[in-house]
């Protein structure tokens, strides 16, 4: 009887038969179907390679600020009626805009003709040699047309690198202190007596006497935490410090910075504590604000617009006051955030520039910017506009516009260093170590903490300087 073959054996036998009978033919001997596939592949490849990328007619503008779109659209519509080429506005998320901008600068992928970009994203555009910064250097043009004098001078600083201006400031973003007037006034505290942060701590501390069932304060005077690098930077700037000088050298371990971080530690730990963590832009932080767990917060102008949307419950319960100064008679404001309008290098600069000017010097845009977002314009001639003086029921009938404008010329200058984010992180690390030191040594007097603060800041500075020294382009520029 013939033994049945296994399936494997059968396949193997068939395969051998195929191999044995296969004639030796050339590579190009293909079936009709295969030729069709090859043809489609070749044609589609050629089509993709040759087909021109459709270029939208007109000038493209990118922005990452959703709130700006409804303000700009009417201005752009009017501009497009009278001018050619027309302007097309596109809204991109902040991170996407930053990445597409860098991609365009570094590898020549398509870019918009006008880019409106936030401070947190723009620094890396300034990391390379000056001549390779992707934005048009507007320094000469801004001075020639008198814009430098027409706009708030410190507001140019975040958009300037190595003495050159690469963008028009969209805003000023001065900072004040917002407080729960209902709570503070009920406690009989007279805020007009608060001139310095020491006054603030002394006069506001009684608010912490109201305890919950577990013996913990129901309220803390200040919303601030040592893990909030933006707020820490704002206080550092207010005190006259900063992380980089005008030439981009790190100056992190200054006396001023040491004093500020020592004081923040004393506010967030031990018997001198007056601050609590109620992070901005979070549901939990907002809940704590509604409860009155934190009574005062640092508030740049734009944050008022955010609160009106996120915290309508606080309408009529809030008031603004200038920031307490670090020294008597010192600066009563600071700055947080910012956006600029930049023009990537283009042969069409003369077509783009008039539109940029029209947009940023337009009174109706400035008005809407204030009415919908509480943001004041950096154009000084507009500061006299009547709408800035109108009372705002959200802030108990105060006129936030006028109050912010009074502080605008005093906002501190800021760095545009691509290493600023890193510096902020390192200063935060220094704060964390300093707080641990304070707790370990039961030492909460800010003046006693200054030597340790300086030591921690020196380490932070060395870390940033080390990274800076690795940038061969900056090194070469400095050496000659």
């Amino acid at each position: 009887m013939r033994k049945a073959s296994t399936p494997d054996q059968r396949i193997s036998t068939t395969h051998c038969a195929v191999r044995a009978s296969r004639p030796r033919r050339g590579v190009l001997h293909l079936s009709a179907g295969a030729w069709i596939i090859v043809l489609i592949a070749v044609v589609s490849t050629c089509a993709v390679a040759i087909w021109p990328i459709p270029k939208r007619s007109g000038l493209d503008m990118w922005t990452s600020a959703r709130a700006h779109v409804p303000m700009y659209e009417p201005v752009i519509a009017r501009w497009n009626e009278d001018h050619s080429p027309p302007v097309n506005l596109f809204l991109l998320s902040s991170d996407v805009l930053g990445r597409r901008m860098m991609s365009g600068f570094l590898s020549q992928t398509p870019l918009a003709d006008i880019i409106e970009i936030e401070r947190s994203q723009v620094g890396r555009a300034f990391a390379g040699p000056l001549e390779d910064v992707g934005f048009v250097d507007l320094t000469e043009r801004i001075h020639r047309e008198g814009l430098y004098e027409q706009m708030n001078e410190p507001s140019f600083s975040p958009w300037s690198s190595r003495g050159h201006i690469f963008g028009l400031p969209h805003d000023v973003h001065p900072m004040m202190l917002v407080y729960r007037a209902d709570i503070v006034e009920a406690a009989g505290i007279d805020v007009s007596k608060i001139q310095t942060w020491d006054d603030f701590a002394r006069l506001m501390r009684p608010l912490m006497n109201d305890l919950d069932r577990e013996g913990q304060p129901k309220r803390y005077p200040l919303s601030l935490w040592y893990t909030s690098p933006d707020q820490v930077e704002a206080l550092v700037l207010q005190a006259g410090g900063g992380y980089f000088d005008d030439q981009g050298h790190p100056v992190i371990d200054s006396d001023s910075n040491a004093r500020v971080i020592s004081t923040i530690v004393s506010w967030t730990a031990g018997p001198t504590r007056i601050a609590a963590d109620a992070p901005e832009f979070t549901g939990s932080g907002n809940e704590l604000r509604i409860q009155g767990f934190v009574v005062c917060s640092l508030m740049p102008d734009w944050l008022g617009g955010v609160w009106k949307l996120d915290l309508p419950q606080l309408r009529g319960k809030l008031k603004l006051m200038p920031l307490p100064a670090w020294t008597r008679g010192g600066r009563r404001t600071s700055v947080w955030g910012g956006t600029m309008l930049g023009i990537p290098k283009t042969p069409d600069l003369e077509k783009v520039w008039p539109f940029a000017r029209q947009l940023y010097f337009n009174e109706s845009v400035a008005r809407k910017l204030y009415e919908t977002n509480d943001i004041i314009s950096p154009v000084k001639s507009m500061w006299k506009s009547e709408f800035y003086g109108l009372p705002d029921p959200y802030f108990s009938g105060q006129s936030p516009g006028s109050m912010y404008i009074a502080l605008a010329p005093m906002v501190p200058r800021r760095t545009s260093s691509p290493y600023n984010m890193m510096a902020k992180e390192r200063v935060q690390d220094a704060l964390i170590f300093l707080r641990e030191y304070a707790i370990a040594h039961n030492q909460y007097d800010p003046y006693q903490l200054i030597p340790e603060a300086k030591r921690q800041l020196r380490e932070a500075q060395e870390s940033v300087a080390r990274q800076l020294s690795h940038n061969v382009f900056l090194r070469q520029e400095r050496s000659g």
Partner: protein
Amino acid sequence: MTNTRQPRGAPYLFLSPFLLLFMAFTAYPLLRSMTLSLQQTFGPRATQFVGMDNFRFLFADPRFWKALKNTAVFTAGSIFIQLPCSLGLAMLLNKPGIRGRAFFRLIFFSPSLVGLVFVAMIFSIIFEKRTGLLNVALHHAFGFNVDFPWLQEYVMSALILASLWMYVGFNMVYFLAALQNVSKDLLEAAEIDGAGFFSRFINITLPAISPVGSFVVLLSLVGGFQLFELPYILLNGSGPNSQGLTVVMYLFQTGFETGDLGYASAIGWVLALLLILFAICQRVFSSVRES
């Protein structure tokens, strides 16, 4: 009937689309990143050859070592906490008498179906001080400190907890499949011979599932070393004192926030070599054990 017209070059022709894509999107970027790691660049015009400078700087960079340490701690947490939990769950659900086994398998597996970004966002709310679900629940249950700073001072614990929730069920499925292939005859014979639960587990179950176990360890190792999205979203960056800084996050920050693509490429290559080394160690370890 056989096809006598099939040419010798046809396989290559049909492989060519893949090969072309592979060359364009894998091989070329690999080579390009290798050359980039020897350069400092700022766009196509500003490029400078720096030799091994990026690597020298890397090995002396405290932040890189911090990132490596954080990543190693997270990975160790994943392996030594997550995998025993997965195995325990798998053994529980492998017991024949349990009702609703399929339902529980689905419940435990389902977190891994949720996107990592979503998980990070959920946990950023759960770990909030004072109002977060975890602190509030623990406070009501045990009087736990409602201001416990998970995301400020206990970052790694928070990351390991979040990843435990997400992946414990995923790894459980591997172990469950392995456990179902353990010889029941052997287990019964051992039981008849008087072997207790732990003796059976150590001498029969564990050796039987060890090939799957070592595969899961390797997967967790590679996954742990590629950790990025979870801390990036949970902490909105690397977190206080860079406690959540991982190697991939440092690569991202260097390349896409500071713009130093050369240094980022060097970090990428060191990470790749580390992972290759782990894979080789795992292979050697497996083959030694098998022999």
